[in-house]
């Protein structure tokens, strides 16, 4: 209700004071510009974005940045410690693994896999979850019931076990891992999309679009969907983080990325047998994983912080 002073939110006051004949167009920023402006003042977001930029840079230019081919083995040089430790060699800055492959190069190449899996799986999940959420929220009825059943199935099964069973049976490859992780991580999208759609469905601009002759499908895609983009973006980043961790976990359990690809989770698993004696095998990829995931999470939290205020309470 605009007729009253609801002064919980100072922004609200400023906004309602613009009521009147003309508006000074300099007063408000467009949603995108406002978010950008807030983003510039958000430390967490900047840090996260910076790290991710670095990781993407590493991933894209891995062939030029990595000192060695990550697949070339040098068996006599296996299990070298990092260079600054006794027995290390400067050729192999971070040491070598059990096949004598350069650990630094493998970690750099590992960024590719983590990013590909994270973005790929989160995209697959988004496509499934947003579609189902939009359908269930906008059309309701039996469709909503059916989707609800799917969600119950999805939630009730321990997802890691499900993924393991699927990967185990289908076989390991990057594509399989992306699709399987994506296909088991869409509930979050669905729940948020569905409830937001339920809310938006009751908004008058939806009724307006319907009354100007748009079909229900057109309304769902052209009117409702754009309004979900902020929330989907936030979930997307969080799901990227979750997917990266899932991949690492799967690979750790031996059901993720197939060897000899340099997946950080797989590297930790391979180092596990000798972790008491060659701890860098476990610590280094773990740190890389931690940095990437924390960066993605910071980015996600930041995006949420700067876009969520767009909504009118």
């Amino acid at each position, binding site marked *: 209700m605009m007729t009253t002073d609801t002064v919980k939110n100072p922004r609200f006051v400023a906004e309602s004071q613009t009521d009147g004949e003309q508006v000074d167009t300099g007063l408000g920023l467009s949603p995108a510009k406002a978010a950008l402006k807030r983003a510039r003042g958000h430390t967490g977001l900047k840090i996260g974005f910076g790290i991710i930029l670095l990781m993407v840079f590493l991933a894209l230019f891995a062939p030029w940045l990595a000192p060695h081919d990550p*697949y*070339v*083995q040098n*068996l*006599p040089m*296996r*299990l070298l*410690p*990092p260079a*600054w*430790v*006794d*027995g290390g060699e400067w050729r192999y800055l971070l*040491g070598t693994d*059990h*096949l*004598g*492959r350069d650990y630094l190069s493998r970690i750099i190449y590992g960024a590719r896999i983590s990013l590909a899996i994270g973005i790929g799986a989160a995209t697959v999940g988004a496509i499934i979850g947003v579609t189902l959420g939009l359908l269930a929220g906008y059309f309701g009825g039996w469709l909503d019931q059916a989707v609800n059943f799917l969600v119950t199935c999805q939630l009730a099964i321990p997802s890691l076990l499900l993924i393991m069973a699927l990967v*185990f*049976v289908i*076989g*390991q*490859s990057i594509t399989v891992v992306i699709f399987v992780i994506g296909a088991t991580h869409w509930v979050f999208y669905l729940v948020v999309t569905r409830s937001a759609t339920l809310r938006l469905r009751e908004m008058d601009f939806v009724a307006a679009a319907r009354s100007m002759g748009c079909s229900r499908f057109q309304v769902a895609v052209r009117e409702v969907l754009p309004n979900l983009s902020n929330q989907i973006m936030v979930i997307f980043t969080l799901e990227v983080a979750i997917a990266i961790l899932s991949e690492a976990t799967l690979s750790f359990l*031996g059901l993720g990325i*197939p*060897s*000899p690809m340099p997946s950080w989770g797989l590297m930790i698993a*391979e180092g*596990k*047998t*000798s*972790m*008491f*004696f*060659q*701890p*860098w095998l476990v*610590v*280094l990829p773990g*740190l890389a994983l931690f940095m990437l995931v924390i960066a993605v999470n910071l980015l996600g939290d930041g995006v949420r912080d700067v876009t969520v205020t767009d909504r009118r309470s």
Partner: protein
Amino acid sequence: MRIIHPRRVGIGLTSLLAAWALSMSVHADARSDSLVVALAMPLTTVDRLYSVQREGLVLAQLTDDGLFHVDPDTLEFVPLAAASYEWVGETRLDVVLRDDVKFHDGSPLTADDVVYTFDWVLDRDSGTSRGPVIRGWLDRVEKIGEHRVSFHLKVPYPMALRDMAVSVPLRKQGTYAHTGIRAVEQQLNGIGPYRVTGFRAGREIELTRFEDYYQASPKANPAIKYMRFRVIPDQGTQQAELLSGGIDLMLDVPPDVADNVRHLPNVERLEGDDIRIGYITLDAAGYSDPNTPFKDVRVRRALNHAINRQAITQYLVRGSAQALDFACHPLQFGCEGTGPVYAYDPGKARALLTEAGYPNGFSFDLWAYRDKVMGEAIVNDLRVVGINANLRYVKLNVFSKVRNDRDMSAFFASYGGGGTADASAITGVHFVANTPRNYSGDEELAATVLAAERTIDPERRLELYRQALDRIADQAYWVPMFSYSQNFLLAPGLDLSVPRDGVPRLWQARWSN
């Protein structure tokens, strides 16, 4: 991001581990007559007739005797519960039993018991694990005296003594009459030097020395009175337990772990052979795909040249392991191939590939279910000559399904054959016509192998095996990889002789002072 100093940490860890081990040391006086062994795989039964795991064989060495056994030094098959034997023609074997052998319940071993045991194994409904193999050659068993039995064979079968030694422990007459075929609940009544005094499936087995054991046996009078097998699936846990005195012996230790742990006090390391070989089978018959490059012998030879078996053996398998040239273990009888030997030569491999029409290499799936590190090393070697191998590392249940469906273009596997020092153990399973492991499609080879299995005369067998092995090498049906070595970690003061065939004889274990 400051990295902790790994080597220093390693040393620190080492001393800490040692200190911890010392502080928690419970190596009590009682240890002189007891031994605790870690098992990685859970044993679901103590009855060798029904167990399939290798651990079952180790255990059966203690609880059971067969008519014959494998001499630990010569690896020959010699009488054990049998006093003597005699081949009556090619398909009849007469065996005289000892008259001083007693079961754990005190009853004496008679010819009836032997007949009962073999009849039970021959019975299709009994469901024993080795039944199908025994039924392949044994027709019937006949009692010809109180302590005499006669074995009637279907075909001449030189490995009869081996099967009796490894697969058929003797059972008291009527053993399975009450409990049915599921032997889990059953109190094991064997004739071995130890009896089972406690069994929790998948967790723990307790053995106690059998004091009425026949003195003539080479296994008589073992030094240790109590033996305990604890199931600890995780290698790390086993290490920790060994250091803290929770266990005295670790079997099948990965070489890297063994390398690391042996630097610690309180641990000793033993290395020995294992009659187990690693190999790559190539789909020469074109089962998985009629257009597979492996139908071309030049491609198969190229692979043999491309893989650096020496390096893999030396750095990854380690110990006494050897790189192999032929499809058999060097310790095995008949393993005397003279055919072509493929040296590590990537250049030659590339040339062969070009010749075969693959100048830019090709892609294929390399399946494997164990020894992932070696699999990776193979893949990396192939990458060098331009072949892109995808390592399909799966668990055994998936592996065997795909292999049996003949959907693999190549697989990396290993075979132990129960530690049998005879080439038949390996060639038989892999190259006779009806086995799903045979991807050669070579019927002539299958005939040769079968003939060798049915020949008693050693000279003739040797010749047949030479033919078969040379044919395999020439056609490069396999890439023979390496023989395995075995690592044991022991608590100090434990004496254990290293088995030549990889099967530890724990009755030989003793505590030295």
